[in-house]
């Protein structure tokens, strides 16, 4: 139990996917201009990443390994992720039309969120068990969501700031992300994995 908790804390804070491992930067920059959108994106990503790491574990363990087809890992993972994202898109479209419009292109683009493929591949590399995979996927997406929402709140505040013209928009957002990353270094060594 403690192990699982440590794994969770480790993935959320210490090895944060966005600020420490620099994965999933595209949606991190793309959908963080408004908190509402960021929260919606967070839920979608948590859903996708958890489900994708679960499914990819199943596919590897029960299909690819027995059949000696490990070289198909990446391909089949992409397939899994694409399906999960597509499914999520439909659900979001059905449940919240406004969120669907707010997320726009970034919703289908979760497919190309490298954090999703990353979590599946890292699960494989670190030889996580079934539950570990799920927790790792969940923790990674939770960490992603945490910083995404915080970042969006900061960007809303920044929208009113008197930023010099060349640094307006994405530039200052990148600098902010860098400073956040700096702050997250404080968690180094918190959990020894």
């Amino acid at each position, binding site marked *: 139990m403690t192990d699982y908790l440590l794994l969770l804390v480790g993935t959320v804070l210490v090895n944060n996917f966005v600020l420490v491992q620099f994965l999933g930067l595209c949606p991190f920059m793309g959908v963080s201009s408004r908190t509402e959108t960021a929260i919606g994106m967070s839920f979608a990503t948590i859903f996708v990443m958890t489900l994708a790491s679960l499914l990819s574990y199943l*596919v590897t363990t029960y*299909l*690819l390994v027995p*059949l000696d*087809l490990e070289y*198909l890992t990446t*391909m*089949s993972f992409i*397939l*899994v992720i694409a*399906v999960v994202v*597509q*499914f999520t898109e*439909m*659900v979001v*479209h*059905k449940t919240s*039309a406004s969120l669907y*419009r707010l997320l*726009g*292109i970034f919703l289908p683009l979760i497919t190309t969120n490298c954090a999703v493929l990353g979590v599946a591949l890292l699960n494989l590399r670190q030889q996580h068990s079934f539950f570990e995979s799920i927790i790792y996927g969940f923790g990674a997406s939770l960490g992603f969501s945490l910083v995404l929402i915080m970042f969006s709140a900061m960007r809303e505040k920044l929208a009113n700031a008197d930023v010099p013209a060349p640094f307006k928009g994405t530039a200052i957002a990148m600098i902010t992300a860098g400073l956040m990353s700096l702050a997250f270094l404080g968690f180094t060594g918190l959990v020894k994995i």
Partner: protein
Amino acid sequence: MNILLAILVLGSIAAIFGALLGYASVRFKVDADPIVEQLDDLLPQTQCGQCGYPGCKPYAQAVADGEAINKCAPGGEDTIKKIADLMGVEVQPLDESHVQGDTTASNRPKVAFIIEEDCIGCTKCIQACPVDAIIGAAKQMHTIIIDECTGCDLCVAPCPVDCIEMRELPDTIHNWQWDLTSIPVKQLD
């Protein structure tokens, strides 16, 4: 043999997922959202036709069908930005070719004004007005209902005697915008 197996495995995964998605698309079917109405709500409703469409609703329809979003001159950049947000496309600068008249002069709202001595009662402006804000009959002097005029200036061009001009609405205490610098200060001896 190995390749066949690979194809088979991938194919079967794809087939299963495909079936799943197919079911989901039926299960979570969404009716097309009334985007035209939303677009129409964003447009300023001056019905000026500067976009090249006969009114705001037709332009909203056209935007929904893929027309450029930057043709609404009265709405200006605010409207373009809102449409861009709604349509999920990039903000574009206003298409200058669709701007009629002198928009640089001031942003104050204007309404049409008929110089009544010059009016010959030709009814041409009545036919041009998109919101029926001009009253008058043939050979009778026409006049503008100021409250209904949207300031689209569509009636200016058809007038054969050039008796219509666009005038700024006067400042009153009801529409004053707290511009303290504009207050004339008088000397007190």
